[in-house]
């Protein structure tokens, strides 16, 4: 019954007072990189059994990969798998043959400076390390009337990679071209956009 119009003008006005501070010093070997439009379709859903290949990603190369071993995380729909732990039991999922773990930290990407002292979770039977469902893992599903899937702001994921390096990730968008005001009825999914910082020095927990 209720139909919505977004207060676009208001948002535009509100954001002019914001600033970001993701400047890193030039001597810093650790760089922020952005992955745009990582496509990770799934079949089924909406009550039907879900399936389809996961789209795998390797932090070291900063790119997607089809390798069965040299991958860190993998995407399908809103689900994210890590290359560590055991099979969860979902259809078409990749073998876990690494020791990847993930820890959730509250903060901005810049404010998370180390992987020291974090507890890393891995995939397990019937349970993903990054929990599925709205408000459990990385996203919030707004339901009626917008039906938007939004990465939960202030959630940073720190990964221990297959090679034993550390990386931190902030998800930016689930919609193609990461529009600042996505429309769930018009913008295509699932196109992941995320920022990450990868420390190339093996075992070094520093993330700044």
């Amino acid at each position, binding site marked *: *019954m*209720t*139909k*919505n*119009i*977004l*207060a*676009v003008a*208001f*948002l*535009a006005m*509100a*954001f002019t007072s*914001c*600033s*970001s501070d*993701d400047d890193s010093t030039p001597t810093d070997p650790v760089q922020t990189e952005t992955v745009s439009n990582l496509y990770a379709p799934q079949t089924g859903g*909406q*009550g039907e059994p*879900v399936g389809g290949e996961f789209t795998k990603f390797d932090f070291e190369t900063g790119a997607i990969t089809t390798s069965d071993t040299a991958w860190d995380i993998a995407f399908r729909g*809103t*689900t994210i798998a890590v290359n560590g732990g055991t099979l969860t039991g979902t259809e078409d999922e990749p073998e876990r043959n690494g020791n990847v773990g993930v820890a959730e930290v*509250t*903060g*901005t*990407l810049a404010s998370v400076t180390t992987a020291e002292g974090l507890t890393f979770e891995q995939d397990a039977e*019937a*349970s993903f390390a990054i*929990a*599925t*469902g*709205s*408000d*459990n893992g990385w*996203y*919030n599903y*707004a*339901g009626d009337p*917008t039906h*938007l899937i*939004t*990465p*939960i*702001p*202030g*959630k*940073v994921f720190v990964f221990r990679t297959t090679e034993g390096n550390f990386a931190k990730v*902030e998800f*930016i*968008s689930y919609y193609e071209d*990461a529009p*600042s*005001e996505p429309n769930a009825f018009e913008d295509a999914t699932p196109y992941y*956009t995320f*920022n990450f910082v990868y420390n190339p020095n093996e075992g070094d927990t520093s993330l700044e």
Partner: protein
Amino acid sequence: MQFRLATLLLLIGTHIIVAQSQEPSVTDSILSQELDEVIVTATRTARQLSSLPLPVTLVGKKQIIKSGTVRLNEILNEQTGIITVTDESGFQGVQIQGIASDYILILIDGVPLVGRSAGNFDLSRLTVGNIKQIEVVKGPSSSLYGSEALGGVINIITEKPEKQDFSGNASYRIGSFSQQDMNLDLKQGFKKFRYGFFANRFSSNGYDLNEDAEGQTVNPYTNYTLNGRLYYDINDKLSLFTSGRFYDQVQDAGFTVDSIQYEGDTKEREWNAHARLDHKWTPALNMAYELYYTNYVATELLADPISTDVLSDSDFDQKLLRPEVRGSYTFNVEDENRTGFQYGTLTAGAGLQLDELDRTYFEEKVNFTSQYLYAQYDFDPLEKLNVIAGARFDNHSEYNNQFSPKLALRYQLNPNLAIKGSVGYGFKAPDFRQLYFDFTNSAVGYTVLGYNVALDKLQELEEQDQILDVVVTEDELSQPLEAESSIGYNLGLTLKHGVGNTEINFFRNDFKNLIDTRIIARKTNGQNVFSYMNFDEIYTTGFEINSAYKLTDNLNISAGYQLLYAFDKQRREDVKNDQVFVRDANTGQSVALATSDYFGLVNRSRHNANLKFYYDIPSANTHANLRVLYRSKYAQYDTNGNGLIDNYDTSFIDGFVTLNAAVSKIFYTDFTLQVGANNLLDYTDNNIPTMPGIQAFIKLNYQF
């Protein structure tokens, strides 16, 4: 807003100056804060409004008639600090001091009405046709009324037949959207016996706020209200009052999904039966024996007329039976002197409440029983000081016993100025839905379970291999759900100044144990299982100011303003600690939310104001009025995933003004013709489905 506030302050300033230079004169009964009116809701005894130590809004019959409004929500929405809100469920309710409809008790002649949709009581269910006055007591009133009276109590007082003659009125009103309102009110008195009969038919063709979407925003509906009342004076000491009320509404509910035109309707039906025996034992002791029964039924059936596939079939059947005995005793009634502890009035009561609900998404019919006792002492320890102290005890079958105390004081500083303050406890019992709901959304696949059935249902789901993992412990689900509760503080001043009066009231309400849904388990389909938990702590605070002013013999002006802050305490703390984030529009990266950007709770406007003009032209038997209402911006829901309303959310509805006006003329002594329009500025928003554009109307009333 700036302008309005300035006008208001100017008005108040003018009052004070005028107060010093003019003799007090009579105020006009049209203005809501009429000083010599008597109200019963605040103390359960008849008390002069001006003498009460509590914040009260009184809306009299004259104001209702002159405004030309026909449903209760319309007239209440014109009062300061009383706002009708359509919440995320799509249902409309009333908000008082920033407190949602769930926590406001609705009474008719002192007995509660039932039948809420997602916690909202739809006030448009009630016609104003036979109302004598509406009494609104703000702040917790559980010390007299028990559950639900946290934010306040709205008591609708129907008209009593006073005269011996046969009298009454008949009216017909037609307006925009084919809105028709018909009233017949009959009253007659004999030596010992009086009766009143009232009938109302109200219908509308509905309206559409969004041409692009299929179907109408509000579908056509018709409703009927019938009310019969009998009064019988058995002897000097005993009198009997009985009332039967019936309400029935049918609304077309057809709509189109995937090019299938579903047809059907939504039906509501309500019965109220109320009997009370008033017993005057002595001049000092009055008792009342009361029996009340009500039944509210709502059903919806939608089906494809060709394939007969049923899209939706739901029903809701709630019953309430409540016997109560109460009495009031005035100590030393024969004594002239009324100052001192020993000269007060003791009011006490005891009752039993039986609730029953049978509805879709409940496994079986559920019952609650509760017993209660209350007492209140109203006295003047000093000549200028009035004290009301009271408490109520509720013993309930489903949750912990509740003890609800309240203390209120009023001190007359000088003949024109009084100060009043009160503090009280309010509670709301967990409702049937929060305890017994068993609902799975068929399209998306999530499940919502009532607290009392959560453990069992969770086990059932586990046996069906639908559960991935349970995120709460069994222990957490075994503790009984607590009643939601609040402590409310009110502190105000009442000022009489020459030809007007001003009331100011500061309020603060601290809520704890608010019940909200939270995830208790994850399902194998990726969705969640929700149940209800006590966890939120919120507060609402602000002030309200009302000023009424008789500018000339024929012109009355009133102005009202409410300032409101409503926040979740935990969320506010989180924001302060930089634990809440928003996304930068340009980079998409998270940044911590500034404290100043936390807007507060949903559906709360910071400012709410009204300005009303009432003008009489006695020579032409004509009356005209104009009411201007303002509501500042408010947000409907979180849009950026951080779980609270901040200035970056996009669901804000901008502040808006509504303008209502009516002109009436009396002719041939018994006839009144009224012409008017609500929402003259034609303000509409797709997100306010309960507000159509301009509603012009013409009404003819015959008084006999």
